[in-house]
């Protein structure tokens, strides 16, 4: 396979006159892990939502493999092979862990194979298996994050899109999430990771975009960005 898996060009997001993102362009190759970092309000989440069809957008090119996402209604995007982990988890709080995961496989038949995927998720996050009959709303923040990732995996995606998975988690849990993401990537899953936590992003991804005020301020390999003072200026203003 050659050519990018996900390619985005000329993507803009406007909420009621506010320009949240403008002229965003990047690609994710098959099996690659790409990060988008930047301070609060830089337009990272808006960019992801626009890709998923969940925010009002203008776009020149938005392709995923053979699919033209620009013409695809939001509920079809998962069928194209993109799993989405939204900012703030957004699990279904009043449903059990089991049900949350099964809903991740909404586009598949709920059969023995799906049950198999369920077991895979439980192997990856044993704590979810222990809590499978609990309501998702009763889980701790970290467990909910695992659940959100598990739910996205249930659709058997080729690309996983994650929005701030570290938000509100302790370093120990952030570490666990980090390991899980790395392993998934090693197994061949492409990853697009949006994070404020630059350190975490550098650990998981090989290449990063830095966003500032709705635009891409710079791009580079993680190794190059790690020591770059500009990244710090983008975050802290000095």
């Amino acid at each position, binding site marked *: 396979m050659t050519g990018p898996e996900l390619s985005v060009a000329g993507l803009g997001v406007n909420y009621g006159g506010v320009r949240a993102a403008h002229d965003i362009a990047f690609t994710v190759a098959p099996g690659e892990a790409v990060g988008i970092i930047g301070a609060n309000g830089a337009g990272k989440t808006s960019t992801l939502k626009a890709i998923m069809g*969940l925010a009002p957008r203008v776009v020149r090119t938005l392709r995923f493999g053979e699919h033209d996402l620009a013409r695809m*209604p939001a509920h079809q*995007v998962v069928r194209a092979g993109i799993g*989405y982990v939204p900012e703030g988890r957004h699990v*279904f709080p*009043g449903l059990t862990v089991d049900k949350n995961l099964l809903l991740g496989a*909404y586009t598949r038949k709920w059969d023995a194979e799906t049950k198999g995927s369920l077991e895979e998720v439980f192997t990856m996050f044993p704590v979810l298996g222990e809590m499978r009959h609990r309501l998702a709303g009763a889980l701790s923040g970290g467990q909910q994050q695992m659940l959100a990732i598990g739910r996205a995996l249930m659709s058997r995606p080729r690309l996983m899109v994650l929005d701030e998975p570290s938000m509100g988690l302790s370093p120990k849990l952030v570490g666990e999430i980090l390991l899980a993401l790395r392993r998934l990537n090693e197994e061949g899953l492409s990853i697009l990771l949006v994070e404020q936590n630059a350190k975490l992003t550098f650990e998981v991804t090989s290449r990063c975009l830095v966003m500032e005020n709705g635009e891409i301020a710079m791009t580079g390999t993680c190794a190059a960005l790690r020591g770059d003072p500009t990244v710090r200026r983008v975050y802290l203003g000095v």
Partner: protein
Amino acid sequence: MRAFLQTLIGGIGFGAVYALVAMGFSIVYRTMGLVNFAHGSVVMIGAYAASTFSMTVALPFPVAIVIAIVVTGLIGLVIERVLRPLEGRDFDLMLIGTIGFGTVLEALAILIWGATGHAVPSPVGSAPLDVFGVRVRAYSLVVIAVAAGATVLLALFLRRTKLGAAMQAVAMDPQAATAVGVHVGRSNAMAFAIGAGLAALAGGLIGPMLYVSPVMGGSLGIKGFAAAIFGGFGSIPGAIVGGMAFGILDSFAAGTFQGYSELVVFLVFTVAIMILPTGIFGERTVNRA
């Protein structure tokens, strides 16, 4: 004691119907944030449709109710489609819009069935049954059983089926539901149809208990809505508890205060809602931040 039990069972019979009405309100509200004031009129249409098909067309009563459910389900889809631009945005406008729909449905009912209304004979024998010395209307038991059955079916649908789970997911988080592949619009339309279907069932059941008339929807709808709010708007167990509470309150108020029962019921409701503004189980509303 005997009188008490008789009143109680009569109240539960009415309460079962109120619970069905309240569940209809709640399932629509929690899925799409639409407060349907026309729900009472949908109940009325259901009552007419069921009684017409069973009396005039001479279909068996259960079949007539099923047809009524289909008819009102379609009406529900129309209401939902017209008011969709207001969903989850402006509650006050939606409330007024559905009141407008209620007015239209009432006028249609008068055009079709006339203004006077008619009595509906009970599909089961009208002779009271004697249960451990308590005299009970057989039809009350039928109503309770059917309502309980419908509730169980609804619960099973929501709990056991993929579609039901998806509908609940939409209610809790429409955006996340979209991201896992659920078509939110289709799920909402289905919720609305189910709500209307519950209304028809309620209307069909209450026909033989009351006089079927174009204005019956007013009081039934308001009590069902109040029951839903009292139980916790959007919650299914809340709708059942609220409905039962209203039925029983109604029944005892009618025994104690005679003609003033409605006055008492609504005063009690007003006080209750001021003490517990979000009802017994708390409001379950859509997440549309």
